[in-house]
């Protein structure tokens, strides 16, 4: 119909209400967002702003109450292998080894065993876990588990990576390392990444665009481009200016009498 209709991923007027007991909770209110192919977009906001719900709707795990999500004009109706979710608590299959977890998607497609092994080997290598291929998830550290989760969706040929606070449970050093690896993988594979976080610094470090959401009901507040060269220097003045701006956006609508100055 109009020019918008060739958008890669479009969230069109999505509303979502949950019924919790007798109460109706409006999680998302008229959300519109267009994401371009190959972009790295961070969704940021306080808890309860619906950023995870929006991600789950894009994944197809939840249906919007009204509105729809389109990928190249085709509405999303359920989970699909074009979109791969990376959960905060990994959600690896604990009974499968690292290699088998990564091979899970290709195996579902009915590819020949040799091909499945080849793909698994390739992505094992990409995330640097070849020496740990035959371990079970219970024998891995948090950072290693999250690498397996990323490799698992990439091996499934997902071209949209949905990441729900994926590094939130990791220690600071491991988090930095994985942020770095994510950027490398993103640059190498050209996947589109939608990354939910509540860390302003993480969003500023990773994103092409930061979408700021606010709660009650969940809606999009601001859509801010981050025009910084990569690799980004977290101590540079430009970085901190953007970070400060984001923090102000995040806290501007929080009606607290004692607002701390932005760090």
């Amino acid at each position, binding site marked *: 119909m109009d020019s918008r209709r060739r958008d890669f991923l479009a969230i069109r007027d999505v509303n979502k209400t949950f019924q919790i007991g007798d109460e109706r909770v409006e999680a998302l209110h008229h959300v519109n967002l267009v994401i371009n192919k190959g972009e790295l977009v961070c969704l940021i906001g306080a808890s309860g702003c619906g950023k995870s719900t929006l991600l789950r709707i894009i*994944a*197809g*795990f939840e249906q919007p109450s009204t509105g729809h999500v389109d990928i190249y004009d085709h509405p999303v109706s*359920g*989970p*699909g*292998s074009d*979109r*791969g*979710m990376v*959960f905060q*608590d990994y*959600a*690896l*299959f*604990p*009974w*499968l080894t690292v290699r088998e977890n990564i091979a*899970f*998607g290709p195996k*579902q*497609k009915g590819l020949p065993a040799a091909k499945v092994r080849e793909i698994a080997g390739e992505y094992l290598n990409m995330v640097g876990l070849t020496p740990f291929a035959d371990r*079970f*998830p*219970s024998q891995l550290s948090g950072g290693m588990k999250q690498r397996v989760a990323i490799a*698992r*969706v990439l091996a*499934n040929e*997902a071209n949209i990576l949905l990441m729900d606070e994926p590094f939130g449970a990791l220690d600071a050093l491991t988090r930095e390392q994985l942020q770095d690896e994510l950027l490398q993988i993103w640059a190498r594979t050209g996947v589109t990444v939608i990354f939910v976080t509540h860390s302003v610094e993480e969003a500023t470090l990773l994103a092409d665009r930061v979408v700021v959401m606010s709660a009650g009901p969940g809606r999009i507040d601001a859509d801010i481009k981050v025009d910084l060269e990569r690799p980004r220097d977290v101590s540079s003045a430009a970085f901190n200016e953007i970070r400060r701006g984001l923090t102000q956006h995040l806290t501007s609508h929080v009606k607290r009498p004692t607002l701390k100055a932005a760090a």
Partner: protein
Amino acid sequence: MTRASAAVAAIPAEEPVDAAPAPQPSAAPAAAAVVAVPAAPPRGTAARPGDARRRAMFERMQGIVLGIGFPIALVILWHQLVVMSGTKLVPTPYQVGLMMYDFVFGGIHDDAFSGTILTHLLMSMQRVYGGFALAALLGIPLGLLIGKVKVVRQLLDPTLSLLRPIPVTAWLPLSMIFFGLGPRSAIFLVFLGAFYPILLNTIFGVRSVDPKLFEAAAMLGCDGSRMFRQVVLPAATPSIFNGLRLAHGFAWILIVVGEMTGVPTGLGSVIMDGRTLSRTDLVITGMIVIGVAGFLTDRMIVAINNRLLRWSPQHHG
């Protein structure tokens, strides 16, 4: 480690204070601690690996000594009580030992039970494992379905909840009408007793799977019956094995009841015969054989469990 040895050192530190208020307070208490508590490692890391090995060995020996020593003490107590009370109703352990030998090899009493252990044991095992296998074959798939498919749950759950509290022994008269006086009745009772623990634990296993695993599998292209085989079944396996172990115990309990229904062979019928003939040595012999057979099968189930669940260290039996 350091905090523990410091605490140990603090106690004997009081003693040398009177004897020698010497200026080496760090060396003396350390030596005292080693003397007082031989298990506590001396400070420093060099001696630690050997010490840990020694402690592990000590613990293993302790387990063996206690585990074997306690039943031996019980047998001695049993012997003493029989001798002291002078009862003729309960045999001594020695008499039971003779009976066991006769039951296995014959040549002592030379009666209807001499050397017949295999006949009875095999017959009972056939019924126990027959009923147990039936219960597993029906209980696991049904439990997976009830756990995962809402319609099946709505259809079957109320009925099964109503039937479950009925004691298996209450089915005895009906089962004798349905299946006659014989082995099929025993198999049915064992099946009934083993069925519910397997079913309930399988349902519980499916219901407690992290829903994110289903989402993860769905986004990777897994659905329908493949979801059952590749996600639901493995995720519920720890719980299913709990059910199998419980059910296996019930199966051996119920075989005695099942073989009271007038079957001529089987360990349950041996025990019933012993009762009728006032042969308590025979009764106790039958009980011991059931105990050992049940124990050995349980070990087998645990071994399979540990093999299948090697991904989950906390589920090792």
